[in-house]
């Protein structure tokens, strides 16, 4: 009995010091993704001259369908985006036109922010896209975190490599670094304001920083989030863009 207990303690200690990166990623994916989501958010874009806030409401289903409507300010109001698989359409009320973006245009910045259209489109689970291993531990904003090194195992990953700092208690990313194939650091994301949403933890504030640009980056602030709500199919259709 004592021997069994000792073995259990040892195994637990071993796992603690050498956690399974795959299992960590699965828990992170559970927190960060769901079958459906409705998110109301503010995107605060810090420019060199001023900052502006863009309010939007987004619907997503799985990892290949999403619909976003921009609610404020007036310049953006009524602009809508629809993503289905790897295709993206944008509707502009000013011109009453729906334009499909593809190719290199997806690498362009969304509304002058530090996020690209590709960043916003990629909702796939990390475990599906990357091979991971734990390379260390670090403290981030007073929280103990594992450092995970992720290498893409699919050809169409937006970033060839990522480095994640995962909260050891909540399994939520606290910091992310995205790298190109050349090893060049492209983006840095800082996640904070982690809150309990049902049985999940979710960071309600994310700062995206394009390392290749000057400035303070873009804050993505989640005002409200619904996990696994019922979303009608017509939302994810081109017809809904003009409604």
């Amino acid at each position, binding site marked *: 009995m004592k021997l069994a207990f000792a073995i259990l303690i040892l195994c637990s200690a071993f796992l603690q010091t050498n956690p399974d990166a795959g299992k960590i990623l699965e828990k992170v994916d559970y927190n960060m993704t769901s079958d459906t989501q409705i998110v109301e958010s503010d995107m605060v874009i810090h420019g060199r001259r001023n900052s502006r806030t863009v309010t939007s409401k987004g619907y997503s289903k799985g990892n290949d369908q999403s619909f976003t409507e921009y609610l404020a*300010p007036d*310049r953006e109001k009524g602009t809508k985006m629809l993503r289905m698989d790897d295709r993206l359409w944008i509707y502009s009320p*000013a011109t009453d036109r729906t*334009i499909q973006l593809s190719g290199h245009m997806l690498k362009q910045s969304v509304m*002058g922010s530090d996020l690209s259209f590709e960043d916003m489109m990629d909702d796939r689970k990390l475990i599906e896209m990357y091979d991971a291993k734990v390379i260390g531990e670090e403290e981030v904003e007073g929280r103990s975190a594992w450092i995970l090194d992720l290498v893409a195992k699919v050809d169409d990953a937006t970033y060839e490599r990522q480095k994640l700092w995962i909260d050891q208690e909540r399994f939520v990313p606290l910091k992310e670094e995205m790298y190109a194939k050349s090893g060049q650091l492209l983006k840095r994301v800082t996640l904070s304001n982690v809150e309990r949403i049902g049985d999940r933890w979710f960071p309600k504030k994310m700062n995206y920083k394009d390392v290749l640009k000057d400035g303070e980056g873009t804050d993505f602030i989640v005002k409200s989030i619904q996990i696994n709500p019922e979303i009608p199919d017509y939302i994810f259709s081109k017809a809904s863009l003009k409604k």
Partner: protein
Amino acid sequence: MIKFLLKGILGDKTRSVLPVVIITIGVALTILLSGYMRGVMGDMIDQNARFETGHVKVMSRAYAENKDQLPNDLALLGVEELNESLAKQFPEMQWVNRIKFGGLIDVPDDQGGSKGQGPAAGMALALFSNESGEDERMNISSSIVKGSMPSHSGETLVGHDFAEKLHIQIGDEVTYMGTTMNGSMAFENFVVSGTVKFGTTALDRGAIIVDITDARRMLDMEDGAGEVLGYFKSGAYDDVRAIAMSETFNDQYADDSDEFVPEMFPLRAQNNLSSFLDYVDSFSTLFVVIFVFAMSIVLWNTGLLGGLRRYQEFGIRLALGEEKGHIYRTLIYEAILIGAIGSVFGTIVGLGGVYYLQVVGIDITGMLDDSTMMMPSVLRASFTSDLLYIGFIPGLVAMVLGNALSGIGIYRRETATLFKELEV
């Protein structure tokens, strides 16, 4: 003495006509080639000035640091006041505002979808203003292949190749998608009023030209401009004046650390044109040196022949008691006079040629498919004030040098041999 020498030169045409002819030809060629090189090279500089650099360009400091990215978020604001201030401070310049922008052009099909797309290389100019001179400067009207210049807000010119590829007709609508100065998404429908050939593939495939008022509204750049370009009203680039102007303007903001204050750049400080301008200047010097060298040799030979012919004359003059040095000096004075006469004739002929090439030019339309905005179809020379005197350098120096060398023979002349020659 000069009158006496002049009488001698005019009286004995055998000693003056040939050197004058040689000098005239050499000087005329020097001036013609210098003027032509200035004109051709000047055209390349002019092309840069028309499209890119202006003779001077004013941008915000932040915009200038990143100008290749067309960072309209860093553009100049309060441009109306800036224009007035520039016009007052530098009245010899014409000032124009431009906005360059990137993005996407989307062409709708009959069902409201997209028939095609292309990257947009946008240029916003003061098309509706006659005073701006942008149409002539950019050679737009003469480069239109189909249709006409935009005459109303909401109209645009597009690259001809792009229009052909997507079967865009005059009157069709295209949609521009880009980013405003504040980072918002910009969407605007334009009616295609015409297609234009730019002369470079990249622009022909995706360029759009709109009036600056449309661009300002579309990109949230009211009272803004990416660039304020200045052009000398004379039309010719004055490097010295442009540099001085830039220094005077920039001194006003030297103590201001704000990244959005305006900063002026002369043409030579942009697009690596500094070395090109120095190269053009050195060409004239090269021509002068070549012609001095070549003509000196020819005139030295002419002087030697002349010296042989005047052998007896020098001998008699020595016998009459004239000093060798005095004879030598009169030879040099004669050379100066002949050189000056030849230089005057050569300058007149050369300038006449430069004037013809400047005004009429060489029409190379037959060698080009069409006139484009980038490449005018007529090559021209360029008259600059230094052409008035540049010919005198080879004209005088060569003649004097040639005669100086040939006149050395005077010092070997002996009176004793004179009497023998005269059989006295």
